[in-house]
């Protein structure tokens, strides 16, 4: 009814290659972004900003990064937490060691440092594959955990290994209130999502996907595995690193290496898979699911009046069961569920 492609004829390939070739999609996404920028700041409570929206946005960014690596290039990584840590600590060091370093630049530099580390740990992927690689990437996780605890220089000789940042200042705009933080993250994430979307629908994106789906065939059509895999690691860790920096700077304010421990890596992988491998949109769905669900469950179980322990055990159980449930309903994630729904809508009211 409302959702129809009919009558939307593309007169140029360019038009067909837009991010959202279907007009309704474009409208919906446009409205959503506008809503997020213009309406949410007036509607949301401080709790919503600080405890849900900001972590949701930052983790979406990290999930986009991880999705590039896992979803698009097919290299499973369990070291994401480590790359986030690199981004956070590197950004911190740029801030603290270079006087007058703009925060934005520091975050980007954090991303770049994560890129370097990511590429380094990506080198084994040229030889090791699949689950072997997945487990091997834990090396990155544990090594960075260790390095930031042990090497004092990284933490500016802080005895405990934990660091904190001074005020966030974006070209004179002091980002202080939750709303400002939210807007900052939102802007950041929207730009990054746009860049990521552009990449995955360009030829580099096709190279990644080709590596994922069939690497021998990819080599035969002239794709260099080295280049494809390492760029995927690079781009992925760039986004992940920036997300790490934001996590430290904006969400936590002060952090220790444990903020980026292995559970973070697993959570991110969850987001990517629940959301949908190989889908930028899915990264958002996944992040929302993993950030919001436990909180909702927590609140619900507490509301029912269970003791804290029972409530949180129950939360664990429901959370685990829901993950399995979603995987069964749609192994390709929420994004696929979404597109199936769209397909149905397109056919509506005819069943097929």
């Amino acid at each position, binding site marked *: 009814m409302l959702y129809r492609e009919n009558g939307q004829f593309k007169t140029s390939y360019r038009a067909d290659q837009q991010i959202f070739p279907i007009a309704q999609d474009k409208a919906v996404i446009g409205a959503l972004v506008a809503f997020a920028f213009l309406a949410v700041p007036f509607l949301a409570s401080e709790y919503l900003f600080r405890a849900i929206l900001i972590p949701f946005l930052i983790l979406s960014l990290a999930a986009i990064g991880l999705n590039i690596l896992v979803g698009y290039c097919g290299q499973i990584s369990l070291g994401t937490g480590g790359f986030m840590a690199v981004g956070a600590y590197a950004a911190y060091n740029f801030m603290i060691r270079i006087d007058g370093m703009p925060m934005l630049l520091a975050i980007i530099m954090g991303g770049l440092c994560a890129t370097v580390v990511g590429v380094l740990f990506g080198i084994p992927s040229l030889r090791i594959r699949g689950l072997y690689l997945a487990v091997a990437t834990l090396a990155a996780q544990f090594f960075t955990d260790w390095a930031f605890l042990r090497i004092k220089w990284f933490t500016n000789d802080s005895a405990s290994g934990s660091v904190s940042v001074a005020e966030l200042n974006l070209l004179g705009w002091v980002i202080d209130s939750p709303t400002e933080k939210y807007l900052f993250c939102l802007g950041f994430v929207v730009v990054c999502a746009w860049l990521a979307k552009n990449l995955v629908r360009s030829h580099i994106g096709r190279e990644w996907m080709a590596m994922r789906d069939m690497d021998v065939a990819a080599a035969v059509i002239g794709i260099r595995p080295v280049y494809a895999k390492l760029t995927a690691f690079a781009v992925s860790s760039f986004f992940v690193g920036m997300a790490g920096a934001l996590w430290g700077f904006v969400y936590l304010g002060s952090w220790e290496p444990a903020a980026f421990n292995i559970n973070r890596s697993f959570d991110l992988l969850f987001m990517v898979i629940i959301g949908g491998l190989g889908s930028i949109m899915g990264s958002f769905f996944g992040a929302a699911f993993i950030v919001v669900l436990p909180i909702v469950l927590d609140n619900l179980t507490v509301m029912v009046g269970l003791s804290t322990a029972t409530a949180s055990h129950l939360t664990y159980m429901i959370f685990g069961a829901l993950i399995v449930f979603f995987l069964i309903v749609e192994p390709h994630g929420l994004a696929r569920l979404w597109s*199936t729904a769209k397909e*149905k809508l397109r056919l509506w009211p005819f069943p*097929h």
Partner: protein
Amino acid sequence: MSNILLNVNGIEVIYNHVILVLKGVSLQVPEGQVVALLGGNGAGKTTTLRAVSNLLAGERGEVTKGSIELRGERIEKLSPAQMVDRGVIQVMEGRHCFAHLTIEENLMTGAYTRQDGKAAVAQTLEKVYAYFPRLKTRRTSQAAYTSGGEQQMCAIGRALMANPKMVLLDEPSMGLAPQIVEEVFEIVKDLNTKEKVTFLLAEQNTNIALRYADYGYILENGRVVMDGEAKALRENEDVKEFYLGMGGGDRKSFKDVKSYKRRKRWLA
């Protein structure tokens, strides 16, 4: 007809909740016969076989309408393993050998459901090797490292190891050298006449399929568009033109074909 082994009754199959592939397919396979299922790419042959052997679930497909009966028993709810227990086994399209197992191990897994003792299994193994001598020479290689044709033989041999009553063969000729294709069909005939094994085979190679089959169904776009005795089908002008490549009597050289898509109209 009392000896109907398999009766497929107006089934619809949907993949992924949205893609409707079979739109009411009905067919019958009498006991002890070879029935061919013909049709172009994407007609739904594989899907039909999967529906019978209950392998649709793994592809996220489901039968939404109609019924399938084996000897009068409804079988839609059975698991693939239960189907094998009832003597119905499918040779999947695209080989699907167990890559890490050797050829012989592959064959032996086929005998998993057998209860009649080691000796009997060994005997069947010898029979399979006799049918496919090439497999015997490659028995210790991992299946993944054998050639495409060898894998095809392995897949067929593996199914035979179960001593089936009915075999669903999906594109047996694909990738086989011509004389092996002949051999495979000879084997089919052999099993059919000697051991009374019933076959339902999906084939693109219409020519040979109709030579060996008793009866044929032609499937296009998820519907049965024609069926009849194999002999009769072979004589049918449309079949000749579209499936045997012999428009106007003689076989045309592939070099000279210029396509004129009358077929599209025929199907509409």
